[in-house]
């Protein structure tokens, strides 16, 4: 008798809770996982495909499912990997993540024919020009997606590393440490 009442009550409870979950699932439905949206917002959004996924949205989904490592985005480098790891609560060793080499597109003025193909594909409108006029790249807006290089018929658009000046010069990471004077800092204080 006790066994029967236990079976009946548990079955009823199960049915009731199942119904409740079913209703909740229907009415409180989330369109997509919020974590995927957050991840997508972190990713560069240029849909470059260097990670092997067809775009930033699928990459974010893979990250959320745990099918991709936090270090998967080459243009984002370790800064992005650190943000992703913090969001997903992953433990991360970034010592062998390669920092992306910073590149910028440049038009060789000798061979540009002014065909306008490059600035039609530029996702950030970083190329300016007019038909039969030599085009130019706005370096600040160029994201080094290399789309223009692919379409250029005369190969006049090439990627170049960003020139190091006093403005963007940084100290290198001390790996093979050279001989140092006592401290050797940068700005004197006294």
């Amino acid at each position: 008798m006790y066994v029967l009442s236990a079976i009946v009550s548990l079955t009823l409870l199960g049915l009731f809770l199942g119904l409740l979950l079913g209703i909740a699932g229907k009415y409180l439905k989330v369109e997509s996982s919020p974590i995927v949206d957050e991840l997508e917002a972190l990713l560069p959004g240029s849909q470059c495909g260097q990670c092997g996924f067809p775009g930033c949205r699928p990459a974010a989904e893979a990250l959320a499912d745990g099918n991709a490592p936090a270090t998967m985005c080459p243009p984002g480098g370790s800064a992005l990997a650190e943000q992703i790891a913090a969001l997903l609560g992953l433990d991360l060793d970034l010592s062998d993540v390669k920092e992306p080499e910073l590149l910028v597109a440049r038009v060789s003025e000798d061979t540009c024919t002014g065909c306008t193909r490059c600035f039609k594909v530029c996702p950030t409108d970083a190329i300016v020009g007019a038909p039969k006029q030599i085009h130019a790249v706005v370096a600040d807006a160029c994201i080094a997606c290399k789309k223009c290089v692919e379409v250029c018929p005369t190969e006049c658009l090439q990627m170049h590393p960003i020139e190091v000046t006093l403005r963007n010069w940084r100290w290198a990471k001390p790996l093979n440490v050279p001989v140092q004077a006592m401290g050797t800092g940068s700005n004197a204080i006294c």
Partner: protein
Amino acid sequence: MLSFFKKPRFRGGVHAEEHKTATAALPIASNFPLPKKLYIPLQQHVGKPAEPLIMVGEKVLKGQLLAYSQGLISAPVHAPSSGVIVDVNDYPAPHPSALPIRMIVLETDGKDEWVKTQTVDDPFQLNPEEISLRVGAAGIVGLGGATFPTAVKLNMGRENHVDTLIINGSECEPYLCCDDRLMQERAVEIIDGVRLMLHGMTNSSGTNLHLPEGGRAGQPGMKTERAVVAIEDNKPLAFVAMLAAAEPYPTVSVIQIPTRYPMGWDRQLIGYVTGKEVPVGCRSSEVGVTIHNVGTAYAVHKAIRYGQPLLSRVVTVAGGAVKRPMNVEVPFGTLISELFEFCEVDKEQTARIIMGGPMMGDSLPHVGLPTVKATSGILALTQSELKNTDEQPCIRCASCVSVCPAGLRPLDMANNIRINQLDAAVDLGLKDCISCGCCSYICPSNIPLVQFFKYASGEVMARQQAQHKSEQTKRLIDARNARMERIARQQREDELVRIAAKAERERLKAEQEALV
């Protein structure tokens, strides 16, 4: 016994071997031969570079304005001697990278002919605003090495309620003794400069735009009441000379402070002299203190009394490879190679060239670089004077923690930076690191701690810029997508209109045909 419980008046720091005695005993050499060519950088200060207003081939006189300051924080550049401008172009900067920077090249004519200067009989009759204007026009910047434009600091002193002016004569870096000699030989001039600075910080109008009504500031006639000249107790002669020079003036006091690096760090000095701690992220003027270097005070004296702009400075040339170590007054733009020739530097023995002190100075790749306003010293160190960099594992002795003047945990920060977890290092206070080098100096395992922090600070900056760029990229992509969509919609609508027009035409045609 009670003093045992008192908060110590300074935190951390090290006492490195001083190496000052040989150089500090000699008077400042003024017989340095005028170089044939001077390479004068347009940026020798914090802020925007100066804008040149001379032309190549133009003849200039000593003290003539070569480039004017542009923007709020900037400083002009003057001709250190008379001669002809031969070039305005990019030359290697006195910086660890020796990357090119815009410079004016002046070929001196050897006459050293002055431009007409404006002397003032009683500068204390001048408006305080006029004092700052003249200090700014003379191109004076902080000569301790930070090179912040002095006029901007004086203005800040007028606008905030600054009650104490500290004159930094600590010169805590080993080897350097240019300020020591300056104080010994030109104490009267320095004290005059200090009094002029005090006058320049007086708020005559009483207006204040930066603090809310009812604050301490904004009272008419408010002024900085006192100046304190703080000199480390390893410079007794300089202290005596300054004390004698300051005696007639009750507003200027001269005190001795303990010899400990980095005593010259502004926050350390403020803490010691006034007992106030400057909060993180605040300027020293927010606790009512402004700091200037003794060299700056001397430059102010020359600029106000004689109308002479900042054209030269005393530079310490020292180190094991220097045969004749000395303090020498050199015009800006003098190549280090000429300075080394004058001081008989042994090239063979020189293992490292450093601009500034050995703790915080920059190591330079070669000697073909000019001296600038920030050059307090040029060191030619031998191999034996360099720190052994044979890195060993951390033994967790926490020496770096106890010497850190900023109260950070260098070993933890370095461990985070080693595996590129920069955000974690920032959480531990990376941004409060002043790169003083005490941690690297004290570390028994020779871990390059400060080098890690300097790398990380640059990297954090680069990441911030990258973040900014990625936000901008997203905006650009959105704008482009919106435009593309608009164009496509427009085309669709045009197409529909065209189809409708065609249908209408055909209908009319069919009607006409039906009529016929």
